């Protein structure tokens, strides 16, 4: 944990030094409520801070998919193939999307399966994947770090801020921010939580949305959302607010918690990829395109999120070129 704290602190320093242009919104804990200027510039609920782009539009796949194990020379896919494994950056505490299975010790979920499908497309073997856990406020930097990950699939919202630093794949999941409260609470949304402590992961867009909510709740940051659940169960916070998908995973672990409220925001999830090799983004989009069409996406949804109801139509791909 200390190793992680050190990394988090280092990343904080880096992003502060960079003047926050990294697209991350990490801020030292507890400073949110005391920083009106920050709250003023942060995105309000449902209104993205930056509408200069269409965050859903990604790079169009070019050529047809190469055969697994035969990546064209000179491409980044070939680099990955030669290395022998795909490095996926994700978290290990988001039940249903990417969490550690306590029985097997393996990290699994919807996001991990997205990564495994890319690995399968490169190698023909979904197991040729190395999972590296990254902090929530480390997701943008991770693809261009000294020891970069190839791909970040970590319930990461594609927005224009982040588009400046990284490429996103086409949208693979549509989420929206809601609130988790105690099952005895009368609150029906973020509007009823004025002055109460509401937790979110440090560096997530959810955190900004809490700080910017009109009802003025007190935003509390933790390293991850499961740490928020610990804080919730220890009565350190009154509620947790983030994407409904994550909240469902948390509520599944606590019978005294419920998810309430309308969606405060649209959170389209994309996989983050470095801008240095656009051919890989196009490749990933091609894989997504194929998997939407051949029912793989639907099967993945049913496997992890089947309890939420029947699988909806996969988010339609949009392209910017």
């Amino acid at each position: 944990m200390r190793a992680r704290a050190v990394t988090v602190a280092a990343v904080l320093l880096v992003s502060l030094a960079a003047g926050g242009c990294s697209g991350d919104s990490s801020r030292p804990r507890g400073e949110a409520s005391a920083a009106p200027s920050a709250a003023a510039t942060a995105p309000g609920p449902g209104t993205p801070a930056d509408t200069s782009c269409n965050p859903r539009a990604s790079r169009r796949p070019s050529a047809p998919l190469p055969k697994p194990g035969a990546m064209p020379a000179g491409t980044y896919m070939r680099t990955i193939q030669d290395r022998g494994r795909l490095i996926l950056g994700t978290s290990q505490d988001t039940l249903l999307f990417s969490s550690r299975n306590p029985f097997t010790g393996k990290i699994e979920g919807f996001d991990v399966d997205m990564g495994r499908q890319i690995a399968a497309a490169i190698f023909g073997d979904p197991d040729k994947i190395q999972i590296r856990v990254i902090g929530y406020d480390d997701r943008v930097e991770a693809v261009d770090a000294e020891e970069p990950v190839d791909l970040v699939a970590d319930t990461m919202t594609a927005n224009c801020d982040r588009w400046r630093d990284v490429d996103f794949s086409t949208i693979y999941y549509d989420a929206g921010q809601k609130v988790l409260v105690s099952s005895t609470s009368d609150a029906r949304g973020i509007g009823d939580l004025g002055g109460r402590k509401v937790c979110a992961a440090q560096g997530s867009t959810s955190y900004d949305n809490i700080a910017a909510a009109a009802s003025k709740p007190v935003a509390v940051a933790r390293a991850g959302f499961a740490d928020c659940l610990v804080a919730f169960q220890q009565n350190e916070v009154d509620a947790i607010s983030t994407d409904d998908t994550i909240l469902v995973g948390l509520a599944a672990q606590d019978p005294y918690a419920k998810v309430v409220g309308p969606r405060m925001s649209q959170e389209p999830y994309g996989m983050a990829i470095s801008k240095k090799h656009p051919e890989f983004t196009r490749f990933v989009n091609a894989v997504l395109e194929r998997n939407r069409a051949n029912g793989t996406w639907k099967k993945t949804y049913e496997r992890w999120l089947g309890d939420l109801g029947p699988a909806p139509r996969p988010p339609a791909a949009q392209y910017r070129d």
Partner: protein
Amino acid sequence: MSTAQLDRPAPAPGPAPGGVLRRVRALRHTSPGRLQLLLTTLVVLGLLTGLVAGLTAAAARAGTDDLGDRAQPLLVEAETIYSALADADTTAAQAFLAGGLEPAELTRRYEADLDRATTALTSAARRTPPSGTAAEAIRTLSAGIPRYAALVASARANNRQGLPVGASYLSTASQLSRDSLQPQAQMLFRDARYEVDRGYAGARASWWSALLVVLLAALLVTLLVTQVHLSRTTRRTFNIPLLVATAVTLALTLTTAMILTGQRSHLNDAARDGSAPVALLAEARIYALRERSDDALTLVARQGSPEPGKDPYEVTSRELTRRLDQAGRGTDGSARQAVDSAARHRRDWENAHKQIRALDEGGRYDDAVRLAVGEATTQTFTSLTGDLGRALEDRKEAFTREIDAAGRGLGLLTVVGPLLALVVCGLAAAGLRARLEEYR
């Protein structure tokens, strides 16, 4: 020379500033006066010597007892608390890494660690004054350990139900242990080391000893001067009672010197062969435990190797190497063998750690975990801490031996010192009174 004389007004105006001084000065000019002066000096010196001999012995004894019964055990208990907490943290991380239902052996070890920590905490509380940093540390630990145990219990309960939030409970517990509990235990340990240093100073009772030496020398000189004076002014060459008094004083001086130098030499041995290596080895064991814990937590975090320069393992590793080197140089006999064996197992463990990091870096996380929690690595590491524990026990025994030896004779001196001094006073009085009678 009663104080009543002081209260009287000066009997007659004169050049002398005070009546008493003038009278004393007047005594010097008559033969019986001189004898009276010598007798008074001898008796006063004798009584003072007796008093100081008793006090010196009592102070040295109290200091030695405090060192052996309070300061050093406090150091050992502080080390127990610290290493038990570090071990519990390491064990919990190992159990988590192993995945699935935690192995019963690790659970037992964790429970035993907590037991050791709380037991040591209770007795450390008894040996600590109710205010000060040590007491503050004990209060924080007393409140924190149950909270830590509760967090680990929640982690386990969640883990049993297959809920991933268990992992977060465990990391919260680990954070509490590393950021709050272990630093407090470390503070207690440092405080105890300081107490031990102070304990040695107290046991040496240096000021009292110096005063005693001065008094004994003064008494001997006065006895000799008196005898020389008597043999010059009377026809008798020897004054038997004074001669015996001199012999008794010499005997007292020799006994005191023997007991006190013996005590000091044993104290020095206890410091060199006991306290110093105990502190070193205790720190070495703590750093070893931290190494394993750092290794496990890096795997738990799954973030790859920390950047060079920011790796807590590097710092811990440097400190451990330093402690092992020092401990190797500062010990001999079976402790030295144990330290050498520890250094060998340390090399094996370092190799295992490098292999674990290489596997993890190479994307073979599962193999890295298997190696980290595997039988062979655990065996190597247990041998390392076991060796350090053996060396520690050996040095603790050496300390107890030396402290027991240092305390020997001090009790005797407490009684015999004042008694012999009284005998000297009596003999001096007897020897001089006979001469004084002759002037009546």
